[in-house]
């Protein structure tokens, strides 16, 4: 809505509306209530003491220019911006500090992308104390141990994720909630690569790439593969599994490894090809035989991992829940921070503030860690 339209709806001149919005003319209560109706926002939000500071939309303007989903993406980036604004608001209200263990930006110019990615992934795993095994929860690891702010939101199906660096929040990643958990893990690691080497460039990651992808994208994909499936640990597990099957390589080995490393069977097969542990073009042959990874996993009794569907980073949810527990915000405000209704907010609150334990009689019980006491 333009200022002209808003001023007409409010029944004041445009300069007067501008003066109200700038705060140079006090707004009357009835004008504020009417403005909230016009903008479709709560009165309490218009009165929020901290101005929306993030401005993500502007950073994506150039990157959006060539996207076929520009309009839809623009709207969804607006949603990400509002989540980021709320995050900053929560940090401000809580007087909290944002967790971050950011390494210096790595310069990869004039380096071959694949070996450089393998080296950096190995360094990062060491820095984060991950050893050479599978990462149990890559989102949680990068949120808690690095300080990336990872949001899981709906994006156009052809878009895997977004990356943007925001001054007040640091590295922000958006992952497509519509994609399977294995694909989301890959996207998180891919966006982390962008954060490590090109922190101040926004990124829109498509699901499929042109045949000749730019070097930075080749680097980010190679980093994701090495970070999620480190050479030494994967090689060891591959040989163990193969030995257990009398030295034969079967699709079941690929499915089991993919499950253990929480990646797709395709990503695992391509990684094993790159490591020359299986013949080149194995994935092409599987595809030609109409191999269906999900059906194979089901036959092996392997469950797909539960998708972590929480839209908001854990740190964000904890900040909001603690403010509510301390009586600093109301249930309505909690629901607004969680972008859900009140009952939805209660469910999220319970999941954040309660931990499951076993009672003396062996039954399951929930201990509330921060129940309001007054």
């Amino acid at each position: 809505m333009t200022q002209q339209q808003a001023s007409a709806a409010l029944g004041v001149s445009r300069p007067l509306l501008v003066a109200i919005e700038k705060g140079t003319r006090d707004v009357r209560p009835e004008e504020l209530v009417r403005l909230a109706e016009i903008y479709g926002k709560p009165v309490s939000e218009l009165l929020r003491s901290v101005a929306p500071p993030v401005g993500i939309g502007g950073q994506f303007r150039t990157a959006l220019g060539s996207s076929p989903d520009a309009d839809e993406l623009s709207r969804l980036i607006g949603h990400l911006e509002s989540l980021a604004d709320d995050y900053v608001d929560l940090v401000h209200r809580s007087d909290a500090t944002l967790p971050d263990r950011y390494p210096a930006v790595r310069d990869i110019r004039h380096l071959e992308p694949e070996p450089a990615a393998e080296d950096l992934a190995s360094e990062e795993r060491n820095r984060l104390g991950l050893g050479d095994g599978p990462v149990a929860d890559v989102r949680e690891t990068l949120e808690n141990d690095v300080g990336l702010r990872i949001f899981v939101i709906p994006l156009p199906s052809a878009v895997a994720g977004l990356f943007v660096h925001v001054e007040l929040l640091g590295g922000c990643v958006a992952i497509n909630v519509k994609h399977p958990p294995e694909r989301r893990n890959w996207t998180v690691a891919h966006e982390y690569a962008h954060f490590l080497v090109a922190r101040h460039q926004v990124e829109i990651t498509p699901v499929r790439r042109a045949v000749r992808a730019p070097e930075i994208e080749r680097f980010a994909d190679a980093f994701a593969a090495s970070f999620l499936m480190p050479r030494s640990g994967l090689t060891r597990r591959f040989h163990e599994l193969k030995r257990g099957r009398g030295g034969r390589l079967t699709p079941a080995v690929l499915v089991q490894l993919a499950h253990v490393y929480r990646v797709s069977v395709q990503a695992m097969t391509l990684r094993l090809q790159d490591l020359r542990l299986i013949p080149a073009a194995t994935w092409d042959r599987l595809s030609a035989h109409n191999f269906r990874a999900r059906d194979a996993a089901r036959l092996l009794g392997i469950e797909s991992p539960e998708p972590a569907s929480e839209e908001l980073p854990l740190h964000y949810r904890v900040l909001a829940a603690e403010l509510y527990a301390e009586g600093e915000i109301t249930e309505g405000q909690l629901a607004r921070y969680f972008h859900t209704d009140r009952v939805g907010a209660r469910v999220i609150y319970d999941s954040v503030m309660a931990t499951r334990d076993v009672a003396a009689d062996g039954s399951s019980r929930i201990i509330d860690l921060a129940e309001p006491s007054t």
Partner: protein
Amino acid sequence: MADRQLLLDACVAINLMATGRLDAVASAAGVTFLLLRQAAAEAGALRDLVGGELVRTPIDFTPHVQAGTLRVVGLVAVELPRYVECARQVDDGEAATIAAAVCRGIPLATDDRRARRLCADLGLPEPVRTLALLRGYAEDADLSRRDVRSLLCATRARASFAPPRADPDTPWWQGYFEELT
């Protein structure tokens, strides 16, 4: 319709709707419930298990409005300054409810800690809580323990309600849940 009125904040309205017995609770309390439009708009949905799947059941106050036990009302012009003042501290639903309580001199019901603190700051009488209303109804209707447990379980299952420790009726509520373990 009762002469006495009680303003419901959204959190209490949701809990009462979860029991499916809002009319009976109003009758036991001898009040007509008032709900500000802003609070009604924040009610959202309950969660119900249907065929093993959790589904959202939108909260619809219409039957209770038609029964005359609940009136959904708006603020009038003279109440807007107080509403805006309250909205600096709490959300719109709570702000509208508290503004109406102040301006009309009507008691209100809320479990919300922040909203209750604002009521105290404004010199309002201590707000009623969900459990006081449910306990009053259970005693007035002489419900069996099984019925009371089912009433409380509905607030837990459908509205994810759990009373704060500070609620004097929390031990009463816990007594029914301990029977289940």
